[in-house]
Each structure stands twice: as C-alpha cells, then as structure tokens.
C-alpha cells in the first residue's frame, strides 16, 4: 500500500511541475509576441466577432476570417462561436455589462426584445466604410431598420421551407415536386405510416407543431397570430379546427410520438429517425440548408402546405440573420471595413458560400452561381418562397413566452391529456391572462 501511495504522490508532483512549466512557457511566449507587435509600425487592432451556427458555418466563417487577416495583417479577429442555444441570453448579458463583441450576429425576431432592453447597435447607414447599395433596399426597409436606423446587414435570404429526403420519397412513391396542401399532407402521411409502422412523414417536435398551428390559423384568418394591439388574431372556432388538424396528424402517425422524440425536443434536425431516413420531411428555415445537406445527401425542398383558399400563405421570407456592430465598439471603423469586405469581397463570398442561406445581395448570388457554388435546390426554393411570401410577422406574435404556452399545450395534446377543444380553450384563456402582462412590461 505504501508503495502505491508513493507512486501516486510522485505522479501528482510530476503533474504539478508539468502544469507549472507549461504555465511559464505559455506566458513567456505571449510576452514575446506582444513585443514583436510593438516593433511593427502599424497598430494591431483586435476585433471580436460572435455568431451561432453549425459546423459548416463555423468552418466557412473561420476561413473567411483568416483570409481577411492575411490581407490585413494589422487586424486580428477573435471568433466567438457556438450553437444557437442560449445565444440570445449570453448576448443580452454581454450587452448590458458592456462586454459584447464588436461584431455580432443577431436574428431579426429578436429585434423587438433587444430594443425593449436598450439601444445597443451602431447605425450602419452612417458608417462611410459600408456600402449598402448592394442590398435590396426594400428588404432592408422591412427588416433591418429600427427607428430609421440601419441596425444590421442581412447575411442571406431565409424562408420557411420543407426539407425533403428524396430517398424516403422514392421509397414510398411520393413526388418531391408535390405542391403541399393540408389535405394531401395528411393523406400522404397516412399512406406512409400504413405502409411502414416505423416510418413517419414529418419530423416534428413541439416547436414545429407550433409552426403548423400558427401557419394553419394564419391562412384561415389572414391576420397576425396576435394583433399589434395585443388582441388575438383568431377566434376559438378557427383555433379548434387547427388543433383538430394537428391531432389528426398525431393520430395518423404523421409525426413520431413525442415520447420517442423527447430527447431531440428543440433539435429535430438531429433526430436519428431523420438522419437515418425514417422520416421524410422537416419543416424548418432555409438558412440551415448547408447543415441539413451535410446529413441528407439526396435532398430536395418544397414550400410548407398552403390551403387553396388561404387568405395569406404564412410563408415567411426574411433575413437569415443580421450582422450588427456594437455601438460601444472601440474599433468601429475597422469593424465596418471588415463587415463591408464580408459582404462584398468576391473571395469572401466564395468562401462563405451559402452557409447563411442564399446571399442577400444580387452581386453575391451572381458570383456564386457563376462559380457553381450555389445549390439550385436552395435558390429555386427561395424564388418560390419570394413569389408567395406573406407580410412580415409582428414582434408580439413571435414572443418567447407565448411560444412556450403553445408548445406546452401542444405537448399535452400529443400525450392525449386534452382534446383539441380543451386545447383551444386553454390557449385562449392563458393568452387572455398573459397578453396584458406582456403589454404592461413593454
């Protein structure tokens, strides 16, 4: 036993010495490099750039950054990237404590929430280093301006879309060019599940069921989900009908039971059933195309279902994300230069490709298609969506608390704890309490 203790203690001492040594060596390294920097005549500027995304986006963005650093040796860009989970929480905490990066990727649906917290971003139209003429001005006006200030530049065109696993469709003899309505979606789903008990047409968690619910209702009413004056955009009858439709999807085996897909709640694109081709369709945003494509090789796309008598399609076309400059950035000019390069330099465009969706500038789209870097599946889908697009969703309709209420009720419906009628009652009653609360908070 003594021997054992001796060995262990010797090992620990060695470990300690090693860690001390490595600590010393790294610090001497850094001091050396900083003295080197002092020798160069140009002042080094360090920018911080934060974004979220999947592996493809990370890699392409990092490549673009190193390209820029090579062209501009005086600029060093620190990349801060990760998944979208908790990104907004982190960002707001950083913004309020004054530690936010110089360049940040934000989502248009967050603008209302961000601006209710304060004014954090620089007006890009005032920065001389940024050329906004390359962008479609109408697109900028509908989504990127708040209080007449240009908050961010759109990284791409993002639309609601259905991703289709073509192998799955071939197996069940479904045409991937089908124009979807609520009826043929349900019929096809029934057929699929009858043929194969382990196959489901739709890959959906409660969030995607929420898309179904809100879109279905919106097509019937032609209104926003919640009106600008915080009243409901629908009546009880329409809502009950929508819940009934959702329930029929559950009962027909169109959607994998929630008890099975629970570990993938919030990340349906990672559900093994989808990755293994046991589900055929994923309703999601076109901005994650590159990531979906890396998993599903034989990929096709369609638009979400549209009722033939729809008053509006409910198809959303909006910027994939915006990239904004922190108002308190110490290196605003350098940040602006980088941002301009990021959107207009042809090498940058070729490096970034479609990792943030189809680019929002015509120039970038042209460069990519000239070089065969743009997937025709994605661009065709974007064009279809732009033809059928609905007016932009208002801020309150996308509120996170309301979304939690929706997904909670959808789960109860999926687990058969409540009927569609009860679900509609519950949702309306809860909204009647919650909406005035949210209104008072603003």
């Amino acid at each position, binding site marked *: *036993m003594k021997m*054992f203790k001796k060995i262990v203690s010797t090992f620990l001492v060695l470990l300690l010495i090693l860690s001390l040594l490595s600590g010393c060596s790294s610090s001497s390294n850094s001091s050396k490099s900083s003295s080197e920097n002092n020798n160069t005549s140009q002042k080094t500027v360090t920018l911080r750039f934060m974004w979220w995304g999947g592996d493809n986006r990370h890699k392409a963005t990092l490549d673009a950054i190193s390209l820029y650093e090579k062209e501009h040796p005086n600029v060093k860009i620190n990349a801060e990237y990760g998944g979208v989970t*908790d990104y907004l*929480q982190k960002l*707001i*905490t950083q*913004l*309020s404590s004054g530690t936010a990066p110089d360049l940040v990727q934000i989502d248009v649906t967050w603008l209302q*929430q961000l601006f*209710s*917290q*304060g004014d954090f971003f620089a007006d890009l139209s005032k920065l001389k280093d940024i050329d906004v003429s390359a962008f479609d001005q109408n697109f900028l006006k509908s989504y990127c301006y708040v209080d007449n200030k240009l908050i961010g530049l759109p990284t791409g065109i993002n639309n609601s879309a259905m991703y289709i696993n073509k192998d799955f469709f071939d197996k069940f003899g479904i045409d991937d060019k089908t124009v979807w309505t609520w009826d043929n979606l349900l019929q096809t789903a029934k057929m699929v599940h009858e043929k194969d008990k382990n196959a489901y047409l739709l890959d959906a968690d*409660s969030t995607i069921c929420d898309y179904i619910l809100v879109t279905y209702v919106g097509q019937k009413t032609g209104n926003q989900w919640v009106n600008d004056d915080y009243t409901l955009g629908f009546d009880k009858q329409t809502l009950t009908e929508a819940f009934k439709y959702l329930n029929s999807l559950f009962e027909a085996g169109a959607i994998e*039971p*929630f*008890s*099975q*897909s*629970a*570990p993938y*709640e*919030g990340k349906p694109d990672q559900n*093994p059933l989808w990755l293994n081709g046991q589900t055929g369709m994923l309703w999601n945003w076109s901005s994650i195309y590159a990531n979906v494509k890396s998993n599903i090789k034989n990929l096709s796309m369609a638009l979400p279902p549209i009722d033939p008598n729809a008053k509006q399609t409910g198809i959303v076309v909006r910027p994939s994300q915006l990239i904004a400059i922190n108002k308190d950035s110490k290196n605003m000019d350098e940040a602006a230069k980088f941002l301009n390069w990021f959107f207009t330099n042809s090498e940058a465009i070729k490096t970034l490709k479609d990792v943030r969706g189809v680019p929002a500038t015509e120039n970038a789209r042209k460069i990519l298609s000239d070089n065969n870097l743009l997937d025709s599946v994605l661009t065709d889908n974007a064009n279809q969506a732009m033809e059928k697009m609905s007016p932009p969703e208002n801020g309150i309709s996308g509120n*996170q*608390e309301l979304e*939690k209420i929706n997904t*909670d009720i959808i*789960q*109860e419906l999926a*687990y058969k*704890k409540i009927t569609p009628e009860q679900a509609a009652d519950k949702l309306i009653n*809860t909204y009647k*309490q919650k909406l005035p609360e949210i209104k008072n*908070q603003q």
Partner: protein
Amino acid sequence: MNYNKKRNLLGYLYISPWIIGFLIFTLYPFSMTFIYSFCNYSITKSPVFTGLNNYIYMFTKDMYFWPSLINTLKYVLMTVPLKLAFALFVAMILNIDIKGVNIFRTVYYLPSIFGGSVALSVIWKFLFMDNGIMNKFLSYFHIHGPSWLGNPHISLFTISLLSVWEFGSSMVIFLAALKQVPNELYEASMLDGASKIKRFFSITLPMISPVLLFNLVMQTINAFQEFTGPYVITGGGPMNSTYVYSMLIYDNAFRYFRMGYSSALSWILFLLILVVTVIIFRSSNTWVYYENGGK
C-alpha cells in the same frame, strides 16, 4: 501590535481571497436580489420599486409556480433518500477490509468529481434514450425498457438517478463515520447473538446518525437547487414533468429578462430550504444519537 493581534491578522490575510470572493460574489448578489425582489427590473434598465407585486403574482397568477414547486419537492423526496441509502450501502461494502479496497473507494468516488457537469448530463441523455445503452442492456434480459426521457411519469426519476449516481461525497463521509464505530460494540452484540440486521439498526445506524444528519441536510439543500440535470437532459419536458423550480428562476431571469421577479422566486426557494432545514434539525433530537450526549 502585540503578538496575538498580529497572528490573527495574518490568519485573516491567509483566508482573505476567500473572504473577498465571498463578499463580492456571494454576499453582495445575495443582498441585491433581496432588494430587486421588490422591483420590476429587466437587466438593462434601472429597477422600479413595485412593493410586494412580484410575490403576489407568484402565488396567485404564475401558472408555472406551483407545478414547478411540486416537481422540485418530488425530486427532493426521490433523490435524497435513494442517494443516502445507496451511499451508505456502498460505504458499508467498502468498509470491509480486503486487498485493494482503496482502488474501489477511488473508483466509486469518481462520479462525484465530475459532479453536476454539463458533459455528464449529455452522457446521461445518451444512456437513457429509447435506443440508448440502458435499454440495449435491458433487452438482453428480454425486458422492454421504458421511454426513460419521453414518459412524463419516469423522466424526473431518470434525472434523479443521475444525482444518485454521484453519491461519492456522501459515501466518503459515511465511510469515515463507519470507521469510527467501536469494534467492541459489535463484538459484544455478537456474543449476545444479535443478527446482522439487528446489529445494523441497533449499533451502526445510531452510531453514525450525526453524520447521517449532516448528509441529509447537505443533500436536501443540493437537491432543491438542482438545475443542470433537467436543463440539459430534458429541457424541462416532456409536458413540463421535469420543469423544476430552478428552471423557472432561470427562464424568468435569462429568457424573459424579469430579474426582479426571478429574484423574488429565488428568495422563496431560499426560505423554503431554510424551513426544511430547520425542521430536519428540530426532528434530529429524536433520532440522532451523540455519544457525549450532544454537548
């Protein structure tokens, strides 16, 4: 300065990193949440005093308040007894003198070193998926494993198991206590013909009861504050069956940015833990045995 004063000062100097850390990172936030709990405070704007509104809203209107509180109580009642029983059981096995027992002690302590980490929760999630290792293992015995994470009746238990598995620190403390139990008591009882079970309940348990009390209090406090497990493994679902109180605090603070309300929720949790701890201490008079009469 005389010698004693100097010595005291030196002592405080040595522990000053901890004291400074405590003042800045524990006491200050702790007191500030008390003030914020009476305010309407979103993180970027200055707080507005609203009196008891937060507390009234919590008890009368917040639809997640009572369900999450009940989930937390269920979780505590499930986790604490299981964990203590398991820790004591393993401690008793490791108390047997055999060759290489120290290696086992280290191995059983390992899970606690990882304690509460996100990575571990992710592993747990993979273990208990429908086609995860757990159900594969059960299928060898022709048992069709349940949906550990998808069944709202089981999901909280699955998360509780993760905490039970991290029984190491309680185990080490139990082990130390077991070593303190005088051997002559066992020898005397054996001569009188007491069975193993009788010996456990009449000698072992009373002799280690002070340590049992300590572990009970510590584990109860920890269980009330459980966050990482439900947040990472199930995200509060399915059907909010694992939506525990600390997740409600988190959501209000960092998703809806109602820092004031979230502070109020935290204070209620603090008071709840305080009350439960006091009850445990009060009850200890009847079941904790001190050799020196508790003096």
